[in-house]
């Protein structure tokens, strides 16, 4: 009954979305306020209905209702509650429901909190958002229905893949989806602006917080996924340039470009058409990612050809959304006139360079991910594009980006003094020079990228710190009070930017150091034996059986000491899941200031009490995720900037400001 209710709610949500995609748009075009006013209630109702639907599926999972096919295929009564719930989105149909839920959530939030949006822009935005919802709910109802019943019901389910029975599944996909799907609202804003034929600083001010929000979640989502990969895998790999990873990385890269170009639109009324194009393409890449993962085209081109229903449907959605968006863009963009002029050497110029390199990097990842598919589909043979390719093409684009990132924020708007900016960074130059010489000495002939990577990370970090010190007036004789006052009154957006840029430096350090100086030992150990890795002594105390709720495990115990001091007891295990019989490896990791100690237990010796073990020391590897955390945190700090806060323009209007309150508030502050 509850399952049918969920199914019914999903179909009603489809109907609501159809209404929402027609009436408000019609109202906006013909200037009928009554029609425009339907947008927000429709968006809220749509969210409510999708929530009911989602809750119904969750209920079916929690009570293990094995009359539902989706539950049968992905759950089991013995599974812990956390994984029963997260199992809802751990499969094709359920993950689409989560997709649609977040889509509706963003629409409803814009409807409810966007009271100050011009009614025309708001109606059009919500209408476009609803069109996307129509496409995806239709996709679910027609090809991927999570509420399909099965008769007769089996006694128990087939269980969720053990690799996914991890807290990672509870948090990683929802976060990633908020980011991924969050770009939909930016797309809707862009399409609405194109229909309206107007893009101004106010538009950019409305769009930026949403871009930032989506970007922050995508950053956290990707970082969480990479961390999950790191501890679940058994060998500590945190990124493999897998097509599925690239699917989420491409929108992130282009979203980062969008984030920066939107600043230029907001501050200087320039780069408008480019920013609109980025908004369309960023969400387009989210859809491409969905297509790649959902259609099965990655497994093989042939798998796609033999079971094309889902793939063709998503491909059609992709073509309509991106093709339609780009066609509208081609038709309207020439009418959008650029505003502010600027010289190549200026803050705008630096942001253009940022966009150039990030877009080229996105294109590189796109080529590497999709070209092999094209080649195979055209009969050109099979090639593999793996990490060696991406390291050779992607990193050279990132290095100049980071080099320029140190200087960019010091440049003035319109026309800047590059020499002056570089002079202000002389401390950073000096420190970087020293580090580079040391790195070159240690790493000569070993890794050019490693050498440059470390030096540039240091360069970026020192440049950001120099900028921060300058901004708060260190060394200007202000005293602690003065410095503290300036630090406190610094716009949050500037502060957030510095934190995020510092995060880039931190993450880069982690990536480079961990790949350069990892030490490992793969060996057979007898109980009582000691092995030294990276300066730590691992003593193997033996292994024994341990039982979990739905698995049995072999758990090893290692005592780790350094310089005679006991550091940690690590208990890596190897699980065998009862239902599926599949095995997973649970690495034991202890994060230390200078790096992670990482232990994995493998198979027992055929003859004897020994076990195959893998012991690693991974220097600074945790910095990768700290750095990503900094980036996300920087984004969140920026979001709290008064100018971007959703409620801020309200205050300006109450004070009786201009008809475009957002712009008015901006002028007042700048």
């Amino acid at each position: 009954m509850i399952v049918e209710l969920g199914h019914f709610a999903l179909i009603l949500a489809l109907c609501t979305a159809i209404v929402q995609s027609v009436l408000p748009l019609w109202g906006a075009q013909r200037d009928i306020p009554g029609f425009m006013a339907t947008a927000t209630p429709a968006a809220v109702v749509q969210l409510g209905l999708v929530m009911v639907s989602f809750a119904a599926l969750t209920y079916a999972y929690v009570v293990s209702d094995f009359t539902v096919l989706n539950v049968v295929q992905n759950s089991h009564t013995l599974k812990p509650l956390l994984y029963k719930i997260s199992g809802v989105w751990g499969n094709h149909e359920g993950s689409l429901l989560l997709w649609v839920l977040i889509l509706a959530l963003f629409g409803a939030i814009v409807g409810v909190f966007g009271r100050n949006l011009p009614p025309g822009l708001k109606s059009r935005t919500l209408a476009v958002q609803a069109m996307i919802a129509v496409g995806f709910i239709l996709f679910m109802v027609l090809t991927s229905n999570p509420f399909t019943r099965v008769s007769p019901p089996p006694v128990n389910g087939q269980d969720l893949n053990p690799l996914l029975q991890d807290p990672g599944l509870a948090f990683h996909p929802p976060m990633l989806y908020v980011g991924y799907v969050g770009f939909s609202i930016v797309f809707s804003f862009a399409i609405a602006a194109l229909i309206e034929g107007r893009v101004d600083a106010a538009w950019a001010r409305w769009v930026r917080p949403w871009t930032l929000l989506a970007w922050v979640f995508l950053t956290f989502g990707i970082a969480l996924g990479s961390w999950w990969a790191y501890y679940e895998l058994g060998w500590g790999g945190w990124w493999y340039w897998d097509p599925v990873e690239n699917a989420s990385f491409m929108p992130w890269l282009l979203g980062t470009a969008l984030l920066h170009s939107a600043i230029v639109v907001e501050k200087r009324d320039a780069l408008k058409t480019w920013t609109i194009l980025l908004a369309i393409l960023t969400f387009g890449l989210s859809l491409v990612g969905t297509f790649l993962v959902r259609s099965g085209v990655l497994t093989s081109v042939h798998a796609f050809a033999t079971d094309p229903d889902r793939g063709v449907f998503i491909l059609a959605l992709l073509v309509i959304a991106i093709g339609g968006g780009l066609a509208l863009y081609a038709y309207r963009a020439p009418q959008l006139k650029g505003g502010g002029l600027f010289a190549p050497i200026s803050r705008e110029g630096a942001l253009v360079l940022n966009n150039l390199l990030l877009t080229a990097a996105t294109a590189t990842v796109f080529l590497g991910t999709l070209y092999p598919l094209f080649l195979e589909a055209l009969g050109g043979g099979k090639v593999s594009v793996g990490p060696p390719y991406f390291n050779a093409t992607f990193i050279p684009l990132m290095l100049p980006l980071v080099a320029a990132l140190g200087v960019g924020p010091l440049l003035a708007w319109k026309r800047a003094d590059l020499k002056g900016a570089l002079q202000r960074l002389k401390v950073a130059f000096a420190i970087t020079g020293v580090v580079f010489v040391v790195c070159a000495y240690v790493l000569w002939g070993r890794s050019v990228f490693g050498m440059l990577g470390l030096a540039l990370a240091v360069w970026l970090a020192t440049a950001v710190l120099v900028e921060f010190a300058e901004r708060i007036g260190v060394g200007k004789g202000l005293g602690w009070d003065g410095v503290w006052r300036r630090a406190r009154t610094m716009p949050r957006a500037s502060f957030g930017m510095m934190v995020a840029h510092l995060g880039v430096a931190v993450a880069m350090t982690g990536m480079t150091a961990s790949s350069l100086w990892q030490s490992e030992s793969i060996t057979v150990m007898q109980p009582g034996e000691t092995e030294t890795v990276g300066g730590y002594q691992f003593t193997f105390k033996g292994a024994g059986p341990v039982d979990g709720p739905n698995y049995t495990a072999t758990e090893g115990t290692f005592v780790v000491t350094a310089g005679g001091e006991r550091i940690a007891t690590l208990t890596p295990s190897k699980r065998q899941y009862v239902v599926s019989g599949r095995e997973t490896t649970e690495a034991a990791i202890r994060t230390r200031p200078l790096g992670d100690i990482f232990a994995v237990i493998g198979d027992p010796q055929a003859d004897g009490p020994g076990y195959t073990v893998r012991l690693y020391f991974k220097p600074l590897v945790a910095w990768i995720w700290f750095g990503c955390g900094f980036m996300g945190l920087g984004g969140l700090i920026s979001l709290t900037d008064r100018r971007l806060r959703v409620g801020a323009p309200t205050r300006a209007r109450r004070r009786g400001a201009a008809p475009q309150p957002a712009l008015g508030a901006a002028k007042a502050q700048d």
Partner: protein
Amino acid sequence: MIRRARTAVWAMRRSLGAFAIALAVALAAPAAAVQPEEKLADPQKEQRAQELGEEIRCLVCQSESIANSNADLAKDLRVLIREKIQAGQSNQEIKDFLQSRYGDYVLLRPPVKPETYVLWYGPAAITALGALGVGVFFWRRNKRPAAQQKLSADEQRRLNHILDGE
């Protein structure tokens, strides 16, 4: 057992959701990789073997190098590479051998040849085109205000006419 796990992972990849999830899945089978008994005694040669292993695709897996895979084939190839290193072959010779036996697909770094020119020169071409676009953008921008500075004789006449008419 391993083969069954592999098939399961494949089936799962197809049916599973979420890029996310797929991230974990990208990792595919657990543990795995190089086994102690495979390792070469000479640490330098072992290092070479590991680096080479990172460049060779496990053909029965998805997006995994033989260094990280626990499939039987990956193990065979790891052992093969080590035997060839012991026999004194160079990295290039070993790669050439694998390429002739399994085709380009086995190399995670695609070979440079006409079919892959797009892959290898594409990024540079795109960057160059983008830079050109940016150059044109600034060039046109700089021209426009300059053109606006002076009115043509005809424009001046029209302006005077309008002003006089007011």
